[in-house]
């Protein structure tokens, strides 16, 4: 059964992924077999995706990231939370993100 994403959990990028600016694109390049979902796939993030990614610093929960984004985007907080969870789900199931215990 797939693990569900918890909004009060901290997620961080896997060390088996490199985030790069390539030309005009922000690209995630999986390094090890089993990360991502097929061999020559990379993942590009749009501006909002990058804004979420940049906040995944190993300290903030998804709820805190959404709150922070709420100060920048003129969007209802519930909608931002939905987006942050959707983004995390997408990358978590590909093992590009993993969850870590919150550091106190």
């Amino acid at each position: 059964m797939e693990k569900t994403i918890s909004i009060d959990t901290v997620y961080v990028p896997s060390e088996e992924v490199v985030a790069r600016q390539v030309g005009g694109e922000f690209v995630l390049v999986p390094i090890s077999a089993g990360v991502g979902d097929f061999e020559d796939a990379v993942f590009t993030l749009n501006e909002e995706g990058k804004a979420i990614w940049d906040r995944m610093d190993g300290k903030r929960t998804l709820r805190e990231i959404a709150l922070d984004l709420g100060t920048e985007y003129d969007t209802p907080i519930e909608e931002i939370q939905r987006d942050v969870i959707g983004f995390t789900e997408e990358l978590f199931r590909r093992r590009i993100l993993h969850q870590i215990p919150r550091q106190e």
Partner: protein
Amino acid sequence: MSSTTEFVVRKSLNSLFSSNAARPILSRLDIELTERCNNNCVHCYNNLPLHDESVRGRELSAQEIKTILRDAAALGCLGVRFSGGEPLVRPDFAELYVYARRRGLRVTLFTNATLITPTIAQLFCRIRPLEPIEVSLYGMAPKTYESVTGRPGSFEAAWRGIHLLQEYKIPFAVKAVILPENKEDKEAFVRWGETLFGSSGENPVQFVLYLNLHARRDSVRNKQICARRISAEDILESLRQFRPDYSGKLAQFCRKFMKIPGENIFSCGGGINKADIDPYGRLRLCMLLKDPRLSYDLKDGSLKEAVTSLLPQWRKIKSTNPEYLRRCARCFLKGLCLQCPAKSWLEHGSLDTPIEYFCEIAHVQARSVGLLGIGEQGWEVKNGKERIASYGENN
């Protein structure tokens, strides 16, 4: 926030850029890790002895190569091609490979496969190169193979390496170099290729039919190489025999690439978003271009500076050779001809001299599909464009 539909888009590396505008200034870098090789192939244009300590001492260190890889990644580079010599003779190969992958670069490796060990195969399995390993193969039997490589035991070592790639399911392509020593193996190459990945797709065994002259213009080596060059007629026969839909593919190629080049000598893609670094840290337009006048020592400056200012400057060089201007510059077959500044320098020591061998191959191919009449020369034809269009429509 949800004004845009997708935060994450999955793409293949090859489709990352839909337009040239988004391309990074450097998309691919070739790095020749060494010119030394554990084989001593009769036809090789480049190899130096494996244990040549003076050569080894001049090669870039692992740290210097890492700096180049780091700088290339910062310029947006997507892939690096490690070639040689034999890249796997460097004891730091695995370290460099992992470093390149961890910078987010995909890696192409040119190798003879003789030094692929279980450890190396496991590494490629765990950290995928993202490009097929390119294996050069010189024969399907010990006798033919080793008559090319000059090294007893090399056949067994190469096949051990290939079997490891198969065992660990690492994608690879094979470049079978056809020489008088191994021409009897041609059918066996094809049959083996057909067994490799089932019947779907193209046969992963590609024949190398054209030999380049020696990188350091060594006259003894050049004699050896010239003696092994296949005639234009035999090349045509091999192309027809072993390349499926040869005529259709040639028509496609002609439509795309054949045009009169004019006086600019670089009509290829060399130096456009890509560059080559030799084992001693000199940047060039391409791997084959050995003219020392068109090289830049990276110890004297940055990769960025060389890529952004020198490469475009070199690409603007125009021919001053009357013979080139009379023939190649006006020839509608130029796209089909292997003459280029790099090969011109290997053959003649100048960047813009016609190469009779390649000229003949292009003319034989063009005559075989009706682009040229008997006795006609490509540079004399006035309606080349119409001929290509008509050939394209009928194939």
